[in-house]
C-alpha cells in the first residue's frame, strides 16, 4: 500500500538532509508504527507521504500513486489526523465535520455517527473553542475518517486523552485495521505502539536503523528470565532466574514454595529500552 525507496529530503535553504535514504514497505491493513525522538524526521516523512512536501529524492508510491505524479484525487482516499488539532474554533463540532466533508467530491460518512463513536454526540452543537484538549483530539481524529480513507496517517492520536477515551480510540484504530485500512502511526507512546502496531520503524537523525515486527523486537532484545521479589525473615529480597527449565530450578521452587512472594515478573524488554539499546538515543527528547 505504501512503498518508499531511497527517500531523502532536504528543506529548501538547508545544507543538511532531514531524511537520508530511507526505505520501507507497508502492506494493506497493516498498522505501521513510526517511532523516534523529536526532530528525528518523523513528521517530515509523514508530510512527504501525504504529499505535502515535494522536491524529495527517491521513490514514494502511496495507494498505487507515484507521489511525483499525483493529482488532487489522491486525497479522496487518504485521511490525515495531525498531532495538533487544527479545527475551526468558531464553528461547532458538527459544523467542522460538515465543512470538511464539503471539501471532498466522494461520498462522506455521516458526521453524527462519527461523533457518536468518540462520545461527542452531546457536544455536537458546542463551539470547538470551548472544547478540552482531549475533545479536540477526538474531533480531529474522526475528521480524518470522514472520507472512508484507505490509508490513514495518525500523529500521536492518543496524546492528551484520558485512559477511557484513549481505549476507545485504540479500539477504533484496531477496528479500522480489521476493515483493511492501512495505518501509518507516528508516536512517542511506546505502549500504544506495542499494542497497535504489527511492525515498527525506529527513526534517528533521518535514518531508519531498525524496521522489524514488534514481537521479533521483543524476543530479540528481551532477557529470558523471571524476577521474584519475596520476604525472608521480614526482609524484602529479589532474585532473577533463567526461564530455561525453570520448573527444575531448585532454588526458584524453594522460594515459591516456602517464602512469601511479593511479585513475579518476566524480564521482557520494553520497547523504550529496545529503542535506546539499538539506536543509542532516548526516545523522549
Amino acid at each position: 500500500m505504501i512503498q518508499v525507496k531511497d527517500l531523502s529530503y532536504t528543506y529548501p535553504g538547508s545544507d543538511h538532509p532531514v531524511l537520508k535514504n530511507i526505505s520501507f514497505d507497508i502492506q494493506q491493513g497493516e498498522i505501521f508504527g513510526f517511532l523516534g525522538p523529536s526532530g528525528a524526521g518523523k513528521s517530515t516523512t509523514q508530510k512527504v507521504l501525504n504529499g505535502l512536501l515535494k522536491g524529495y529524492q527517491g521513490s514514494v508510491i502511496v495507494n498505487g500513486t507515484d507521489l511525483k505524479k499525483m493529482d488532487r484525487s489522491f486525497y479522496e482516499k487518504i485521511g490525515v489526523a495531525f498531532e495538533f488539532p487544527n479545527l475551526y474554533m468558531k464553528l461547532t463540532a458538527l459544523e467542522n465535520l460538515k465543512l470538511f466533508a464539503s471539501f471532498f467530491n466522494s461520498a462522506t460518512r455521516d458526521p453524527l455517527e462519527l461523533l457518536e463513536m468518540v462520545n461527542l454526540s452531546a457536544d455536537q452543537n458546542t463551539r470547538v473553542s470551548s472544547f478540552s484538549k482531549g475533545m479536540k483530539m477526538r474531533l480531529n481524529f474522526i475528521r480524518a475518517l470522514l472520507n472512508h480513507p484507505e490509508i490513514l496517517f495518525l500523529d500521536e492520536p492518543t496524546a492528551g486523552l484520558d485512559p477511557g477515551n484513549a481505549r476507545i480510540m485504540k479500539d477504533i484504530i484496531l477496528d479500522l485495521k480489521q476493515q483493511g485500512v492501512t495505518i501509518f502511526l507516528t508516536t512517542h507512546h511506546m505502549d500504544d505502539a506495542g499494542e497497535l502496531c504489527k511492525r515498527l520503524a525506529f527513526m534517528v537523525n533521518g535514518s531508519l536503523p531498525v524496521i522489524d515486527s514488534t514481537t521479533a523486537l521483543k524476543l530479540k532484545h528481551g532477557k529470558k528470565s523471571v524476577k521474584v521479589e519475596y520476604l525472608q525473615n521480614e526482609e524484602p529480597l529479589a532474585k532473577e532466574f533463567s526461564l530455561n527449565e525453570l520448573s527444575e530450578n531448585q532454588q526458584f521452587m524453594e522460594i515459591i514454595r516456602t517464602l512469601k512472594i511479593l511479585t513475579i515478573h518476566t524480564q521482557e524488554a520494553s520497547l523504550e529500552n529496545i529503542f535506546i539499546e539499538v539506536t543509542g538515543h532516548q526516545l523522549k527528547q
Partner: protein
Amino acid sequence: MKLRTLTYDYKLLKGDPMLMLSMGIPFILWAMMQFLVPWIMEVAMEQWDFDLSPYYIQTGTFFLMLVPMMMGMVYGFVLLDERDGGIITAISVTPTGKKGYLLLRMGIPITISFVFVLLFVLILHLSDFRNLFQLGLIALVISSQSLILLLFLGAFADNKVMGLAISKGFGILLLGPLLDYVLPSPFHWIGGYSPLFWASRAFLTPDDFQFWLYTGISILFHTLLLWILFRKFSARSD
C-alpha cells in the same frame, strides 16, 4: 468543494465581532456619501461660500477604493486566522487543496466588492458611463484590489500579528489616487506606483480612449501583481 462550503463562511464571520463590524463599513461609506458629504457641501457653501461640489465625485471614487481594500483585509485576516490554527494545512490534504481553498477565499471578497462598487456608482450617480460593460469592467478592476491585499497578507504574513503590521502599510496604495487629485501636473504621475491610481483615472475620465488606456494599464498591473502574489502564496509550505 461544494457550494455549502460558502454557508460556513458566514458562520465564521458571525463568530468574530470585529469582522462583522468591518462588513458594515460599505454601508457606512454609502451613508456618508448619501447624507454627510452633501450636508458638508451645503454648510461650506452657506457659511463660507466655498463650493465643494467639484470634489464630490473624487471623494466618492476614493470611498469606492476603500471597500475592496477593506474586504481584502477582512478576508486576509480570516486566512491568517486559519493559518494560525493550522486549517490551511488540514485543507491541503483534501481534494480541495490549498489552491481550491484560496479560490474560495478570493471569490467572496471580490464578489462582495464588485456588487458594492456597482451599487455605489449606480445609486450615487458617481459616473455617467456610456454602457454597463465599461462600468462592469472597471468595477471588476477596482474590486480585484481586494485580492491583492488578501494575497499579500497570505504570502508575506506568518501570523495575525505580522498581518496587522503589514496592513498598516496598505495605506500607501490609497495614497496613489490621492496624489493624482491634489498634485499639479506633471507631479500627479508620481501616484502611478499604485494600481489604484490607474483604476481611479479610468473611472474618472470622460474620454473613451483614455478610459481604455487606463483600464488596460490597470488590468496589466493588477494581473501581474496577482500572479506574483498567487505564486508566492502557493509556494509556502503551510
